[in-house]
């Protein structure tokens, strides 16, 4: 029977925990499961430890252990599941309204500003909902993810208020929009795309 060494177990543990976000008690079992799979593959002698590890990770959690952690939280917490639906539905409505508003405005058709107003109004709600939804397991999240959440939600809310003020000809609209866009461009976008790149590399 092939047995993994402590160093190999530590390596698997570090690889799994690098994508952990909730740390909700499912990790030791996943570690044991991945170890069992690797031992099974190495027992046959067809593959090396590194190859078996890569294959086991793809089989068990190709998108990181966070996916299983979230699945567990959703199963045990119905409220979180409902909230997830509301957050994504709000996101969809926001994107649709803003896109339609821009199109109508660009074509100089009637009703563009109504869609823009509705879109940015819901964007404010969406930003706040997304922020409260992302607070699950917040202390355990890596620093760059924390900054991404705060800057993303902050930028969304400030831009939404700024553009709404602009449409309604209220004061401070320009400065609010400027602050929101700077937050989005200088903090949110770089971290978001860098993390997406990291995830894509890690899943290969």
């Amino acid at each position: 029977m092939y047995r993994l060494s402590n160093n190999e177990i530590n390596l698997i543990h570090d690889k799994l925990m690098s994508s952990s976000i909730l740390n909700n008690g499912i990790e030791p079992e996943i570690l044991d499961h991945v170890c069992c799979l690797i031992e099974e593959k190495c027992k046959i002698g067809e593959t090396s430890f590194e190859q078996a590890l890569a294959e086991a990770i793809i089989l068990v959690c190709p998108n990181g252990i966070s996916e299983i952690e979230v699945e567990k939280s959703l199963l045990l917490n119905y409220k979180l599941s409902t909230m997830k639906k509301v957050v994504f539905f709000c996101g969809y409505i926001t994107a649709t309204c803003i896109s339609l508003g821009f199109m109508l405005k660009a074509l100089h058709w009637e009703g563009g500003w109504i869609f823009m107003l509705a879109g940015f109004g819901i964007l404010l709600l969406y930003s706040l909902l997304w922020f409260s939804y992302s607070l699950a397991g917040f202390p355990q999240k890596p620093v760059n993810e924390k900054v991404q959440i705060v800057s993303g939600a902050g930028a969304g809310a400030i831009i939404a208020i700024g553009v709404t003020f602009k449409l309604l000809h209220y004061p401070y609209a320009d400065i609010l929009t400027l602050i929101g866009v700077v937050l989005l461009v200088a903090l949110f976008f770089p971290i978001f795309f860098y993390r997406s790149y990291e995830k894509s590399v890690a899943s290969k």
Partner: protein
Amino acid sequence: MQHETMNQRELLKGTLGTIILQLLSDNKRLYGYEITQLVKVKSNSVVLIKEGSLYPALHKLEADGFIKSEEVYIGKRVRKYYSLTPPGKKYTKAAILELQNFIETIQSLLIPNLPNNVPA
């Protein structure tokens, strides 16, 4: 090589808890990897349980009080063995009966002329 289809995954979702309970009633205690291997062997590799579904389902059954777990240290690893609780044993019988009735109903809907189908 067997591929799990989207449809199969959806069908399995509602029955996974009952499958786990049945396996635990047949065996004194099991851990996650063992459950996946048992299902694979018993179903001739047709049903492949995804780890992403199995562990959340196990934790849900444990939170509902139908199964209990004990941790065994194997070197640096922790292995969690699951077994049925007394309410779990009772619930397993009811859940299996419910699933069997449901399968029979679906069968009578899909294959109406099957001899075993008795109209309600």
